[in-house]
């Protein structure tokens, strides 16, 4: 008969780590490490809102933003059964040609953008034109979190939790006149801080200009954003103020806005001016109308990995048909792409 006398140093059955904990050890360690990291941060950085999403770099929010954030309506619009794109990808894979044409250029170069102080000009066909400091411009608005799909014209897409307010609220403030038919947005032009604007080979005639029809701008889905992932906008994502129009290709959603004009004629927008056959004024997400150089029927949802490609069918109006299709009844979307 074999009698086993356990040595004092032997492990007991009760010492065995449960398999589930063993398998999740990385998360456990990570969470602990994150806890320590967060608790050792200075007070201003530990705003609980930034912690709503994983791995968000804390920014240095201006006072007006921090104050407004407290009364934000979280998750006012959401996506169903779709994962939110990791913060790192949403902030390191950008098209912001003012800072270079590579996807990584904006994250690398946008540090030079000075977002404080910032002023916004409202002009054109409005009863109350003016130049506002951003904190005054923002005063009337209640912030909301809007989790939207973002579909780039280059056939990749993300899901981003924006923080902003509907353009309709702005229009109510500035009171467009009866002549106003379109709204025109202009990005900052500052070659000193924007290396892309210093390139002698750029095809873009700066500043970057985008526009919407007034009824499109009035649609409740169209917002001006000042934050994302529970914090203020990082520079490379269009700080401090940008447009977000989720049923249109991403290039419509102009960044770092300095001027908003109500106009009577359809504005000459940047990409349309460069290549009108490729980029229309409407630029509604439409899987049945191809870009001349590639198909728009499908999209790569990022992050995409090499051998598990995350390719999915593109939806009409990026999945927002119920809310926006009525804007375009009677319009030939093949001609007005």
């Amino acid at each position, binding site marked *: 008969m074999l009698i086993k006398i356990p040595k004092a140093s032997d492990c007991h059955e009760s010492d065995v780590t449960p398999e589930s904990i063993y398998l999740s050890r990385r998360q456990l360690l990570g969470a602990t490490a994150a806890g320590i990291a967060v608790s050792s941060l200075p007070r201003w950085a530990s705003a609980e809102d930034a912690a709503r999403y994983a791995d968000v770099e804390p920014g240095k929010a201006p006072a007006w933003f921090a104050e407004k954030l407290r009364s934000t309506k979280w998750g006012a619009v959401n996506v169903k059964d779709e994962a939110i794109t990791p913060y790192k990808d949403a902030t390191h894979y950008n098209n912001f040609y003012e800072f270079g*044409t590579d996807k990584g250029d904006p994250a690398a170069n946008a540090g030079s953008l000075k977002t404080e102080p910032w002023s916004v000009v409202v002009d054109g066909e409005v009863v109350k034109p003016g130049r506002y400091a951003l904190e005054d411009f923002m005063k009337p608005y209640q912030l909301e979190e809007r989790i939207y799909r973002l579909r780039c014209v280059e056939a990749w897409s993300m899901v981003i939790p924006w923080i902003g307010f509907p353009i309709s609220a702005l229009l109510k403030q500035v009171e467009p006149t009866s002549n106003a038919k379109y709204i025109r947005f202009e990005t900052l032009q500052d070659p000193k801080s924007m290396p892309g604007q210093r390139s002698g*080979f*750029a095809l873009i005639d700066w500043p970057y200009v985008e526009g919407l029809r007034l009824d499109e701008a009035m649609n409740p889905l169209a917002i001006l954003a000042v934050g994302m992932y529970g914090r203020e906008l990082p520079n490379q994502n269009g700080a401090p103020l940008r447009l977000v129009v989720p049923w249109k290709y991403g290039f419509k959603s102009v960044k770092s806005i300095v001027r908003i004009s109500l106009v009577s004629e359809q504005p000459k927008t940047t990409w349309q001016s460069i290549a009108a056959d490729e980029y229309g004024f409407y630029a509604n997400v439409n899987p049945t109308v191809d870009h001349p150089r590639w*198909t728009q029927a499908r999209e790569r949802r990022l992050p995409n990995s090499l051998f598990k*490609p995350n390719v999915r069918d593109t939806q009409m109006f990026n999945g927002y048909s119920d809310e926006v299709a009525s804007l375009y009844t009677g319009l030939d979307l093949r001609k007005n792409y």
Partner: protein
Amino acid sequence: MRYPFWRAGVFIAAAIWPLFWFYQAFADLLGPDPGKVLVDRLGLGTLVFLLITLSMTPLQKLTGWAGWIAVRRQVGLWCFAYVVLHLFSYMAFILGFDWSQLGVELRKRPYIIVGTLGFLGLLALAVTSNRYSQRRLGVRWKKLHRVVYVILGLGLLHMLWIVRADLKEWAIYAFIGAVLLLLRVPTVARRIPRLLAKKQVLQ
């Protein structure tokens, strides 16, 4: 075989890049859309190797060193290897092996058509790059391999039609390509001075 270390060095220098890029892609170091990055880098690599191939003869003329010519075929074949990987990555990571979509792209997109023509040209040159073909084709071999200049034009056009907003990078490659072609114009080619190694030749 002459210059064994030089040849091996060139081999390693050319092979290391795709290996490194695929490693980066697997290790999640290429950002959220690694397939697209691979396609772009391999495409640019193809163009760079085409330009390097075309600079071997002028370099040989300038320096008198036969080592350039010794690796010319190898570098040309690397150009072909890169274009094969470029095409494979495009099929795998952009089209997801959707062959019917490839048919659509081949019919509808000028830059894909131009790129495909360039690939077919490189394929023809790679297939006939061996001694046997050189002997079989005789004088025609040289004529056939002049197609490389057409391929350079197709490659540059393919890249130009992909550029969306800034022509700087394209302009640099196009300039280098234009200089390399200019060096082949007979009146220019005859005037290329020999900078080095004249004495050794005279001995």
